[in-house]
């Protein structure tokens, strides 16, 4: 085990996979000399050269499409998005092409492709640099979607992503890059997709949280504990596939659930999770599942406003009490 920052854990896994598999390479903006705005590709160009760590023009659709062609012909590209807010300019290549080609070709094509980058609040970047995009990729079939909330998960899930033969949307969080944790040194350390992590045990209420919200949920759980409410905190880790079983098992015990994410509440993945819980676990529910997500406005620049938009520890705390009818 080595203590690593989330960003370094990502960097190291990319490096290890590039060492062990010559077909893995990276493309993106400012990933070479700079090593990425958040350091996730730091020094990779020094080790692997400009051929395998390729600085692209600002042309996201172009390089995603180039990655698709490379993936169809034997390579395993990792496509770097400085901000995942930029997926919109490449959306056709992502959702009409990468997501669909294998199926439309009757399974006679394989696309081992990782699209990775960060999203969310934390840098005062305003509306087009702070949003969350996971719901697009869970709605249209074809991608797998991972969303690590810790350094160790980032390492284990990224390795799985790079070794997967499907397009994977790997969603990091800018405000988590500096967080650190013990990460296994095993160069084959991998976390399978579709296995949620129970971050905290509890019997009274289940809080399902993703990415940055996991930490806030754990904080809220501590506060709840002082009031005699023991929350179980579950981090799905991947949204597609989604580990409904672990959530249901918890809700069978607690009878209550709060789902919290940073993406907009309306039509966010919380809606899907809440609906699935209702469909499969209706009989367990003592209260309606409550969802928390960003309010229905663009992420504002002002920090005061931003804090009013995204769920905070207090909001989670309140919601948990609400479903416990306290």
């Amino acid at each position, binding site marked *: 085990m080595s203590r690593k920052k989330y960003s370094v854990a990502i960097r190291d896994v990319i490096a290890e996979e590039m060492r062990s598999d010559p077909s893995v390479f990276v493309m993106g903006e400012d990933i070479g000399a700079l090593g990425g705005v958040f350091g996730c590709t730091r020094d990779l160009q020094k080790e692997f050269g400009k051929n395998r760590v390729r600085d692209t023009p600002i042309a996201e659709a172009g390089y995603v*499409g180039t990655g698709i*062609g490379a993936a*169809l*012909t034997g390579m395993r590209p990792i496509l770097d998005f400085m901000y995942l807010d930029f997926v919109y300019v490449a959306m*056709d290549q992502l959702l009409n092409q990468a997501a669909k*080609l294998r199926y439309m070709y009757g399974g006679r094509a394989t696309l081992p492709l990782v699209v990775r980058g960060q999203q969310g609040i934390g840098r005062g970047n305003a509306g087009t640099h702070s949003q969350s995009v996971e719901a697009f990729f869970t709605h249209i079939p074809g991608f797998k979607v991972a969303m690590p909330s810790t350094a160790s998960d980032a390492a284990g899930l990224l390795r799985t992503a790079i*070794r*997967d033969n499907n397009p994977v949307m790997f969603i990091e969080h800018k405000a988590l890059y500096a967080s650190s944790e013990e990460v296994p040194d095993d160069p084959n350390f991998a976390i399978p997709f579709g296995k949620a992590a129970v971050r905290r045990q509890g019997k009274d209420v289940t809080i399902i949280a993703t990415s940055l919200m996991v930490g806030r949920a754990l904080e809220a759980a501590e506060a709840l504990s002082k009031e005699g409410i023991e929350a179980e905190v579950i981090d799905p880790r991947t949204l597609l596939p989604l580990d409904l079983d672990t959530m249901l098992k918890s809700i069978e015990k607690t009878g209550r659930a709060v789902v919290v994410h940073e993406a907009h509440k309306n039509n966010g993945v919380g809606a899907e999770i809440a609906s699935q819980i209702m469909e499969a676990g209706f009989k367990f529910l003592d209260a309606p599942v409550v969802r928390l997500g960003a309010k229905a406005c663009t992420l504002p620049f002002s920090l005061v406003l931003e804090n009013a938009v995204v769920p905070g520890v207090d909001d989670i705390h309140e919601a948990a009490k609400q479903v416990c009818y306290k």
Partner: protein
Amino acid sequence: MDKQTILQVYETMLTIRKFEEKALHLFEENKLRGSVHLSIGQEAVAAVVGAYLRDKDYITSTHRGHGHAIAKGARPDKAMAELMGRETGYCGGRGGSMHIADVEKGNLGANAIVGGGIPHANGAALSAQLRGTDQVAVSFFGDGAANEGIFHETLNIASIWKLPVIFICENNQYGMTTAVDSVTSVKDIAVRAAGYDMPGEVVDGNDVFAMEKAVKKAIKRAQDGEGPTLIEAKTYRWKGHWTGDPEVYRTRDEVEEWKTKCPIKRLEKHMQDKKILSLEQIEATHTKIDKLIDEAEEFALSSPDPDPATVLDNVYYEGDK
């Protein structure tokens, strides 16, 4: 072009023509549905490119992609089955006319999004470059596609990385119902090559020998590590944009005028003039291809529909890397 290649190009063109005539017929007889875009009149472009590519080279294609597929080695029977959505088709009936692909043979697929496939050729070329092979990639696209942003991004990337890729714009004078000059700021799309520091050449796309010259040069350039080329093949589609197009946007005269420039007739005349094939041999070739296409029709018609129980197969690759 040596004699053998001439014969190959000829047979390919004829196969494309007859395949598409058959598809149209089947569509009109309601034996085939969906979007079917015919390249009748444009066969020379695909056929010549196909003749100079090897199996291991790559192409990416468009919604009007039957010709490209056949030129890259697609079997008419499996292609026709795909047009009918049958299990035996190239995509098992999942893709239809607009998505015929044969990745193992280097056809990375037709693409129903205008411009959508252009960068995939870049990627195949990059892959070849990274793997150190001498493979080249060809991207076919239309005049309309050359106004999409992805065209621009792709050509710029290809140029800076000196990718072994060839961009072939089939300028058939229209994007759907819209005349090229009403929506394209330049008379010759090939001039845009200068914006990417690559050679751009206007070619008579109905002349197999003009195509030959341009394609050979571009392949050599790609293999010599000098990078991409943009070829604009001026051509024309005889049929409507889609089966059922009312064709309000052009005159019969214009269509008839272009029919006199039929690439197949032109090559037949050349072969007769140069005694490469006699009239009898030409007729025999027609008969041979007619038979091939009839067999394709039969194969397709007698093939089963996909099993609805398999509908969720192949969304993902299952199993290990």
